[in-house]
């Protein structure tokens, strides 16, 4: 079929429409098209969409052409007299059968694409994607690389309540600290799951939208054609920060990818065995398993100031959403940490709480952070604002994980 022709025609029409609206307001981004596809499946989706769209447009024009013709010709004000027919089996059969045939024409190519999308066999590379409220964890099962990926846009650009925010980054809300990196031209299989609630790993240009369902692993795959950066967002409402959970995939030539893997491994020694996800069991009251910590140099000695400095960063990335930069939280839903009994009380209780989370509340387990990060963020909360409690060391976290 002339899918190519349809593709060209649709591009042109889309461009024309865009140009029209754009002339109305210069420089504005009046996109009316799907983003350029970056994978073979995305390309098929793109073509399917426009093919079906054009069929619908044609039907629309014919059907409503007839209706408006009738509206203009058969109006009382131009002296139309009403006819009295009210049945005609032949036309009724025709307009039942023709749509049916058109639908079969649409279903055929769609079926091919569905079967292809679902074929996850023989991947070149498998990455386990775990969603957290609100971060993505990528675990390269063969290459032994594992890291978290969080929103990188500073909150000052987001919150404009007091004053008009700072100028926004060009990739406002679509930028992360650690993007997922993949080699081009390779079949990447994703094993998507979640640690807490349902999230959606959605990168339109790669033709992927897959829910991460807590306790289940669902697989899907993509192949990035060309080097480039592909952006997406979490597609399923997952709590208050659902809008702040971007995904960035950077596709690199295979050699560059290999170099990237090396570099990552140099940063952190070999990751431990795949972490067990704590598919929390809020209502049954079962305690979440503590995930194996991301590996790091266990012998490093931290000074209190180093801990506080790291802690502030970890806090800004993981905790501000609920407990706020001021530590005042948003009571009653999200308690203040400034002056909190737990935070100013015994170490053990706070460590246990942050490590395991609290079942049935939005306070999730943060066991996915490393020992030093946890020590840092806990130390930070215990010493920031008006709090004056003591520091917590990575060794104490390590001990807490075991027991």
């Amino acid at each position, binding site marked *: 079929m002339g899918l190519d022709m349809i593709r060209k025609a649709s591009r042109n029409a889309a461009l024309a429409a865009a140009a029209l609206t754009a002339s109305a307001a210069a420089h504005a981004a009046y996109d009316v098209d799907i983003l350029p596809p970056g994978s073979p499946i995305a390309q098929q*989706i793109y073509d399917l969409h426009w093919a079906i769209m054009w069929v619908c447009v044609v039907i629309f024009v014919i059907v409503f052409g007839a209706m408006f013709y009738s509206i203009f010709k058969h109006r009382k004000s131009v002296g139309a007299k009403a006819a009295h027919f009210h049945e005609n089996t032949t036309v009724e059969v025709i307009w039942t059968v023709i749509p049916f045939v058109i639908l079969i024409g*649409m279903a055929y190519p769609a079926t091919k694409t569905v079967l292809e999308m679902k074929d996850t066999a023989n991947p070149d590379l498998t990455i386990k994607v775990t969603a957290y409220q609100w971060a993505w964890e990528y675990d390269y099962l063969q290459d032994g690389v594992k890291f978290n990926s969080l929103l990188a846009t500073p909150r000052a650009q987001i919150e404009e309540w007091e004053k008009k925010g700072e100028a926004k980054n060009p990739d406002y809300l679509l930028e992360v600290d650690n993007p997922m990196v993949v080699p081009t031209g390779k079949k990447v299989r994703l094993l998507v799951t979640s640690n807490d*609630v*349902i999230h959606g790993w959605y990168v339109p240009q790669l033709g992927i939208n897959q829910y991460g369902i807590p*306790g289940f692993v669902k697989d899907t795959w993509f192949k990035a054609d060309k080097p480039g950066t592909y952006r997406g967002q979490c597609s399923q409402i997952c709590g208050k920060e*659902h809008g702040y959970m971007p995904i960035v995939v950077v596709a690199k030539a295979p050699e560059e990818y290999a170099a990237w893997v090396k570099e990552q491994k140099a940063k952190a020694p070999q990751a431990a065995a795949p972490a067990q996800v704590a598919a929390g069991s809020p*209502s049954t009251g079962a305690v979440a398993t503590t995930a194996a910590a991301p590996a790091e140099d266990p012998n490093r000695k931290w000074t209190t100031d180093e801990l506080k400095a790291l802690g502030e960063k970890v806090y800004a990335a993981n905790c501000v959403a609920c407990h706020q930069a001021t530590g005042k939280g948003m009571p009653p839903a999200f308690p203040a940490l400034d002056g909190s009994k737990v935070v100013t009380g015994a170490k053990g209780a706070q460590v246990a709480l942050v490590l395991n989370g609290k079942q049935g509340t939005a306070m999730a387990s943060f066991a996915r952070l490393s020992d030093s990060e946890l020590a840092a963020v806990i130390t930070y909360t215990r010493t920031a604002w008006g709090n004056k409690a003591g520091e917590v060391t990575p060794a104490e976290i390590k001990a807490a994980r075991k027991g």
Partner: protein
Amino acid sequence: MSAATHAQDHGHHDDHAHHPTGLKRWLFTTNHKDIGTLYLWFSLTMFFMGGVMALLLRAELFQPGLQLINPEFFNSLTTVHGLVMVFGAIMPAWVGFANWLIPMQIGAADMAFPRMNNWSFWLVVPAAILLVASFFVPGGAAASGWTLYPPLIIQQGISIDMTILAVHILGASSIMGSINIITTILNLRAPGMTLMKMPLFVWTWLITAYLLIAVMPVLAGAVTMLLTDRHFGTSFFNAAGGGDPTMFMHIFWFFGHPEVYIMILPAFGVVSAIIPAFARKPLFGYASMVYATASIAILSFIVWGHHMFTVGMPAAGNLFFMYATMLIAVPTGVKIFNWIATMWQGSMTFETPMLFSIGFICLFTIGGFSGLVLAITPVDITLHNTYYVVAHFHYVLVSGALFTLFAGAYFWIPKFTGKMYNESLGKLHFWLSVIGFNIAFFPQHFLGLAGMPRRIPDYALQFAEWNMWSTIGAFIFGFSQLLFLYNMIECIRSNRKAADNPWEGADTLEWTHLPSPAPYHSFETAPVVK
């Protein structure tokens, strides 16, 4: 006024002479018209409440960045907007029309179970109180989306329990209302009113009521499981205990998809009454309309999976749901074609009800087409949970269900009140609505194609322009609705007396056999239908 109707008019006087007045009349009423009126005012109120929520969230979406409300509250607004519009505005409005019209259109005196009818209405009110009050409890209103997916719903506070119990009460109300409607239609028809002579509004409601009875209990079951998962330690939706969050989605959408047809089938009935009236020509293909409605209803039970193409169902599941969903285009198309054939070679005039009906046909078809695009599994992968879906369902719900509600209100208000509404104001309402609506929702297709997720309070910069337009359109549309409110109140208070049949082409019993306003009890002695 004919002699026959006058006699009836007389007959009921002594019987409701000692009916209570004032507040008691409305609290205790067993009269289908009073109850219909209660439903209609209630739903209009809820529509404005849901609308204000929509405008608030649109205001936040006017620009990127957070200016007005925090994300948690935004999610609550989205959720309660969806719930209030679906369960508070559209559904009760259709029940209101059913109450007013069904007895008149089949030549009955009243509904089959007048006391239960009253209860159906007075259950909706406590449910609405629970829903709206949940904004004021600690933690704020439900913020999970109207689909209430676990486990997110397990995390949240008191408001979720209020929402769940509200849904239970609404379910009880809908089931009783539907039993009442089905029984009335099956058992209280006037002599000679065979099934295949019933006006299409009655037919569509018969089928709608059947859908309601079939799916409301399923929803009740689903939210009951949520409740026990939350508070009593069951593991229906918890993988750790062998359950599955996806299971909730299956059960919810088994309800949810028929639910959307529950909101649109009565609309088809109303349009099938209005188009022939203003084309002055009988409805084309009456029988095929009935069969098409029934086919849509039956198919609606086997398409729910199209809301779940991204959960990772096996390929066979995806394909089955894709094919079944696409099939619905066939009977729906039959309806569209029948309406156009009804207009063909008619002698048309374009009063407000007709304008809204024509607006409905065009815009609903756009919504149907976007539905078809979403039904194509691979395409849905890029569009799922984006603004394309939001555009789709507002085209079918707002310019579908809501526009026909307006059409129905303008069409029947002369019969309800005996007064005529202001035609030019009605037309103004129509044009502002159409324009505002399209500015608000057409650009959302583009946002979705470009990948903007729904249920987010803040968005990337490339989405800014279309969102700005969408918000502008939403405000135009929203404020135009004040015209409707004004027009209705002004009509009721005016003294522009309406004729018994102000519409040349209207030929159902309420127009041909009853005066305007219709008497308190429609037909105390049943008319004989030839």
